């Protein structure tokens, strides 16, 4: 590829999911000239907008249990090759704290700590453990015995309050469902989460909604709505509607597009850019490798390929869900930017959809500095760090550790990339 070299950066991050944006924001805040380049928006718009650190453990019989205290003995729970273990207890604690501080500064605080998981209702009415959640989720906590009303919004297909309420009742919670109308919603118009959220960002629309809904909520202590209460991250629609309705209002995340996930995306993009970093979304990104040395990236866009040079590269391209890993044929896995070796096993899948699938742990192996290593543990590129969903050793579905891995490995990578020694994973536990 012949291409002009664009501006040089101190660090280039590939991938705009939670790991990539957080790493980019940390680097930019530390004063590094930072570019985050990605094909798409990453995983935030697909997820619940919470931070799972450690949600589930399996006992000797293989039964899965909810973890109450995600931080306690985390390293004891982890296999040596688990990315949380490699990043180390310091990275988990400090990464989480840095992320919480960043969100709070942006006016979008995430509540919680490593001491105790929240237990929040899902859109199916089950209990889901998570470590950090936006304030607008907290009133749903299922440890609170007060009765719950779940509300359908007529025309919104991604929430079914009666089904969720029945499952909550089945689990012993006092719960019932109501159906609410959307003010002035055209009957033939599909109601999408983002569409509703933008409407509810308008104060006059919220006032109308509150007037319309109030008569149906007499005596309600707390009300659960699908997570559509505003896209803007200044707490927004949720706070205002809670006050107008005079009850504890909470959001329940549902299938994408995720409004709380998009709020986090906006917070991180704003933080990155406010600190002088740059985000380029859209082009295909490939590695710029010369004589075996990684020199930067090549962005492939309509105007042709362009090179961006940087002495450090952070790979945050995600796993199979996002294209950081690909399986071009049965039993074959590859890493898509630098063709790094991918740790696999002969068996990929379990017979039962719900069981842990071996492939979920496939990925790129790294050392404690998040540098990719080969099977013998030798560093492949000293100036490359791999983080997030790309890494081997974690089953994000089964363990409930997706965002924890993102934050801790991003924090550890930025520390290592800018000279701080990588902590010994055995030395500290959170």
């Amino acid at each position, binding site marked *: 590829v012949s291409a002009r070299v664009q501006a040089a950066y101190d660090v280039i991050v590939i991938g705009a999911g939670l790991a990539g944006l957080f790493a980019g924001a940390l680097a930019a805040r530390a004063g590094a000239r930072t570019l985050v380049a990605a094909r798409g928006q990453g*995983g935030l718009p*697909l*997820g*619940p907008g919470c931070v*799972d650190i450690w949600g589930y453990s399996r006992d000797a019989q293989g039964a*899965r249990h909810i973890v109450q205290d995600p931080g306690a003995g985390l390293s004891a729970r982890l296999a040596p090759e688990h990315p949380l273990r490699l990043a180390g207890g310091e990275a988990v604690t400090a990464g989480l704290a840095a992320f919480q501080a960043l969100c709070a500064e942006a006016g979008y605080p995430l509540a919680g700590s490593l001491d105790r998981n929240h237990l929040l209702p*899902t*859109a*199916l009415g*089950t*209990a*889901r453990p998570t470590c950090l959640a936006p304030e607008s989720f907290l009133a749903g906590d299922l440890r609170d015995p007060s009765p719950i009303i779940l509300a359908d919004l007529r*025309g919104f*297909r*991604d*929430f*079914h309050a*009666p*089904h969720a309420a*029945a*499952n909550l009742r*089945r*689990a012993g919670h006092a719960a019932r469902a109501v159906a609410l109308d959307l003010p002035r919603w055209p*009957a*033939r118009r*599909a109601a999408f989460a983002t569409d509703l959220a933008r409407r509810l960002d308008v104060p006059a629309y919220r006032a109308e909604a509150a007037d319309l809904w109030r008569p149906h909520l007499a005596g309600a202590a707390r009300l659960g709505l699908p997570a559509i209460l505003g896209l803007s991250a200044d707490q927004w629609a949720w706070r205002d509607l809670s006050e107008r309705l005079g009850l504890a209002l909470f959001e329940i*995340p*549902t*299938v*994408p597009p995720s409004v709380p996930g998009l709020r986090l995306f906006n917070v991180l993009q704003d933080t990155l850019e406010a600190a002088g970093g740059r985000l380029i979304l859209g082009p295909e990104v490939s590695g710029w490798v010369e004589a075996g040395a990684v020199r930067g990236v090549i962005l492939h866009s309509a105007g042709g390929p362009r090179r961006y040079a940087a002495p450090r590269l952070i790979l945050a391209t995600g*796993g*199979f*869900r*996002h*294209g950081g890993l*690909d*399986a*071009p*044929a*049965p*039993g*074959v896995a590859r890493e898509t930017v630098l063709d790094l070796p991918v740790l696999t096993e*002969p*068996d*990929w*899948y379990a*017979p*039962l*959809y*719900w069981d842990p*699938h071996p*492939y979920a742990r496939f990925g790129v192996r790294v050392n404690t500095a998040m540098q990719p290593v080969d099977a013998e543990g030798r560093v492949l590129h000293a100036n490359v760090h791999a983080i997030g969903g790309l890494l081997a050793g974690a089953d*994000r*579905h*089964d363990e*409930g550790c*997706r965002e924890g891995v993102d934050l801790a490995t991003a924090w550890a990578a930025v520390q290592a990339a800018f000279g701080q020694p990588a902590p010994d994973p055995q030395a500290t536990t959170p």
Partner: protein
Amino acid sequence: LISTELLIIGGGATGLGVAWDAALRGYKTLLVEKGDLTHGTSGRYHGLLHSGARYVVRDARSAADCARENLILKRLLPSAIEDTGGFFAALDEDPPDYAEPFLLGCGAAGIPAEEISPAQARRSEPLLTPRLARVFRVPDAACDSFDAAHAVAGAVRAAGGEVWLRRRVVGLRVERGRVGGAELEDVRTGERLTVGADLVLNCAGAWAGQIAELAGCPVRVTPGKGTMVAMNYRLVNTVLNRLKPPGDGDILVPIGTVAVIGTTEVVVESADQYAIEPWEIELLMAEGEKLIPRFREMRALRAWAGVRPLFEERPPEGAGDADSRLMTRAHAVLDHAARDGVEGLVSVVGGKFTTFRLMAEEAVDLAGAKLGSRRPCRTADTPIDPPGTRFHVLRQRLEASEASPRPEMACECELVTRAEVEAALEQSGSTVLNDLRRDLRLGMGPCQAGFCAFRAAGLMHRQRPAADEAEGVEEVNSALLEFLQERWKGLRPVMWGANLRQLELDLSLYRGLLGAEALPTARPPEVYPTEKTA
């Protein structure tokens, strides 16, 4: 005691055809099926309405049967049959001496086979390989067996017959050498019911041997597994066949939005327990690549297997279990009175989807003779679809939803609206989301139920009567998890590339966001047999 003249066992193409024929002739008719319509082999085939050309060289009778029935069904069932036409294409690697007996056979069976130039074939099918030696055009067509079965079941009911789903035959009433009815079990409630019948017609396909055994009649049906892969694209508008002796992976059928490559042929131990093996997928992808260059790089959406109910009273010389391709695809109507000394039982075995009407005609002719009331068959001239019915295509759904006052979509892939899901639930009363799939194509598109299963479960719950809600929610939860597990069965064999990406998304929704595996369920999910990858 409920009694009927004819009791038909099996809700696949054969049983539905027999019930329709019998009801039209005015016999009191009841069909019972242990699962849903097309639960067995009819719902697991490649969707080809044979012109007969596939069989002309080795199986002249099947070829002639198919040729006649092809014309009749196109007339009777336009809603389910897309008249795509078919090509028999010889590649440069295929034996050149097959064309001659092929053409002779087509002539003998009355199948119009017109040779066209490879260039002409590629003009109409641009993805077709340039390595073409010869191409013949034949009147093959594509048939949606779910739609066809629903239409025939509707015709049974319209003619006064009854169709009962989810009733399993647990015994036949045999007294003094005569079958006089059957004992049924309601699969959902476990309730037992006895039905008296003047004659029982065993149309249980690959399970017909088990039914006949209940009356002590030995019927050896060989389960011939065939595996197919649906590609995520409608790669062709014409059925493509290889012009060579029948073999694995020699056919590509466009069905709706997908194209199905089939099939393999493996004799299996049981019609219920069989797995799709990695070599079968590898072989189908490799054969697809020969017909359509870059086939392997395209997304394979789903794989499935069905069991052909192969039957020969005396298997041909040299055709052991090892080579079931030598066994006839023709059908047989067995009168167990003459064959085994058991009165009141007729088995209809073998055959294929394309000839279901003919099989039914022969079976009900025999039934009439045995009942002592011969009445003429009317199916060949009785349209199943109302006049003016068009073949269903996705575009019509889009048009309908555009025109609907309630266009809310439950399934974007197949354009199924919430109103359609609600109507189908209301009509069937089913608590099985897989039934909705067969009714509406819900969950059959690229996301393989990733988004619609959650919505459909919510809609199903809304239709449960409030009174039995405690149990109701567990039933609905089971319906959701079973549907996802059922989808997984067909995804797992083709789980690479875009499918794995989709799986990661779907798992992050169901295991992560929705916490679905923690749902209280009515029963544990079924685990399907699988083969370990090498």
